[in-house]
């Protein structure tokens, strides 16, 4: 079944590890929605959050192929477990009239994102939300402010929820 999958990947924090992982996806034609990487509390370990859309069989292969890479320390499937995940995104809205600006602030309020910078005709939104919610916001702003928005997305990071049982 095609669906969205999540992987938490711990790899050696070495030069080339990111290239190895990214190359695996392109070389084997696995679709990759997003990949984020950064060092962890242990600076010799880099942690990646990977999201992809695939069927079950391909996803099994992805996990196995990641596992067999020497650089990979651990592969954890986050797909069907409780996790927290957020993506940082900035959206700049340009050439705003006064009316537009009011609209931007209203949208920011509804979407619960911050206006973190502001000029006579420009507003900058900082959005820390689930990927899907960021998608929705882009679609909305694109409709309201055609060809006037600039987007940068950081990709999702995810962590397992605290288990209370």
């Amino acid at each position, binding site marked *: 079944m095609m669906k969205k999958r999540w992987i938490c990947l711990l790899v050696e924090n070495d*030069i*080339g590890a990111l290239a190895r992982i990214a*190359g695996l996806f392109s070389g084997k034609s696995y679709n990759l929605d997003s990949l984020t990487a950064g060092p962890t509390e242990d600076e010799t370990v880099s942690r990646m959050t990977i999201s992809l859309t695939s069927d079950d069989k391909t996803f099994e*292969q992805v996990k196995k*192929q990641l*596992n*067999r*890479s*020497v650089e*990979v320390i651990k592969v954890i499937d986050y797909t069907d477990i409780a996790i927290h995940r957020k993506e940082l995104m900035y959206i700049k809205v340009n050439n705003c009239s006064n009316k537009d600006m009011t609209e931007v602030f209203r949208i920011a309020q509804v979407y619960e994102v911050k206006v973190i910078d502001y000029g006579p005709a420009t507003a900058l939104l900082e959005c820390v939300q689930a990927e899907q919610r960021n998608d929705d916001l882009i679609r909305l702003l694109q409709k309201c402010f055609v060809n006037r928005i600039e987007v940068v997305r950081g990709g999702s990071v995810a962590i397992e929820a605290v288990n209370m049982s």
Partner: protein
Amino acid sequence: MQITGAQLFVKALKEEQVDTLFAYPGGQAIDLFNALYGEKDIEVILPRHEQALVHAADGYARSTGKVGVCLVTSGPGATNLVTGIATANYDSVPLVCFTGQVATSLIGNDAFQEVDIVGITRSICKYAVTVRNRDELATVIKKAFYIARTGKPGVVVVDLPKDIQQQKGSDEYPEQVEIRGYKPKTSVHIGQIKKAVDLLNKAKKPVFLIGGGVNIAHANQEMTKLAELTGIPVITTIMGKGAIPTDHELYVGNIGIHGSFAANSAISNCDVLFSIGTRFNDRITGKIEEFASNATIIHIDIDSASISRNIAVDIPIVADAKNAIEALLKKASPLKIDGWREQIIEWKKNYPITMHQDGLTPQRIIQSINQVFDDAVITTDVGQNQLWTTQYLEIGENKQLLTSGGLGTMGYGFPAGIGAKLGNPEKDVVVVSGDGGMQMNIQEMATAVVYELPMTICILNNGYLGNVRQWQEMFFDKRYSCTCLRYRRSCESACSTPGAECPVYTPDFVKLAESYGAKGIRVTKPEEIEGALLEAKNNKKVPTIIEFIIEREANVMPMVPPGNSLSDMILESGDTE
């Protein structure tokens, strides 16, 4: 004591018991070669091209079970390894390839002979790394050998910048290394073994399908015992050939698009398919939807990623083939499947693989090799020569077949034979090549001569790139596009009719052999085959090329046409509509 990186490199090779190093010098490797100068414990072999160098190391590794070691310079030296690295890695051959590199301060500057060889080889090797710090040199080399030889063996590339080679540092070499992300599996899941045995015990029509994994794990004796204990017929892939002796009564033949009718029929009709060490490559399965469609499938492989990738497996067992077979030997018992065995024997008898032409046929040549050589390593190139060899070659305990199965690399056979001879000086080495593949590494005649390697090099010369020509004949209306090696510019451009008036072949392989100081024999009649092979075998001074002038349009048969299922074979040439 403080020693240079180059001195540590030599020390590390000795600690790893490397006795043969395949090496070609250059500017960014000169310090390493300097450290090797006069070294008594390591014989340094200088082939004539880096591609042949890595194939030779591959042949050495496959035939000895040791790690093959290469040393080349940066830039073109490194890039010339690429095909050989992919070839070895695809067939799970343990190699460690050291490449010189420009100094760390120059990396990224587009310096002379700088390439990112780690980046280039990342997707075709098991592990690749640039040493960036003299302190970590010893650990990196130790890791390289450990990774190459354990688990599913493969190729490790170690890139050594010039300043690291020159810099002084500790002379210590670690006894062992720990890699947290790399833990080769050494145990066997006994629960899964039990499940497999239970399934076997209920089977009416079981078969073993054995891939290269059994040969790599050196589990041939155990495999033979398991077949004998259970009475289950054994089918092999090309890479698995020799898993049990080919003259064993339980041996059926090769599976695949040029496999035997009996083997392919047994796979199509079996109820339990017990496969060990194969990845169900498209060349063995034919149309995948109809592959073993009636069977429950058990699959043992060291690489979990090979399981349930191409076909769905019912009982997966991730384990080393030898460990798993030993576990099976403790639990398995004889099966009452006489009727099934008789059925397979009947298929074998009624549809043997055979060539119906008269004269100097590849079948006769390979069968003569079977008779003349009994303690030998046989290597093949790629194409028809390889397929005929894998069809007709008999392999027992003292014979080994080396062939590029996964990547299918033309130019492999001859240099691999050189490596095999260096690793097995007491054995005969027979190379079976085509006239096309032989010319891809012909320069190694010099290597074979200067290192005094008597070996038998059989060139099956049909003046064509025969395997592609066969496809053009069968599926492209005889449009022989770019496959004739007797073509001259003055020929008619679209020719599909080889004849007596074709231009003479170039080169003249007999004269070529002589020009290298080797022996050359041309064979044109079947009655000359055995004499030529014996002469080559008894020539203990120099290599012998035997050029067999075979029928130009001989085909490899039987054949499963592309897209067909295994049960849908063309048995003889001319059976196509």
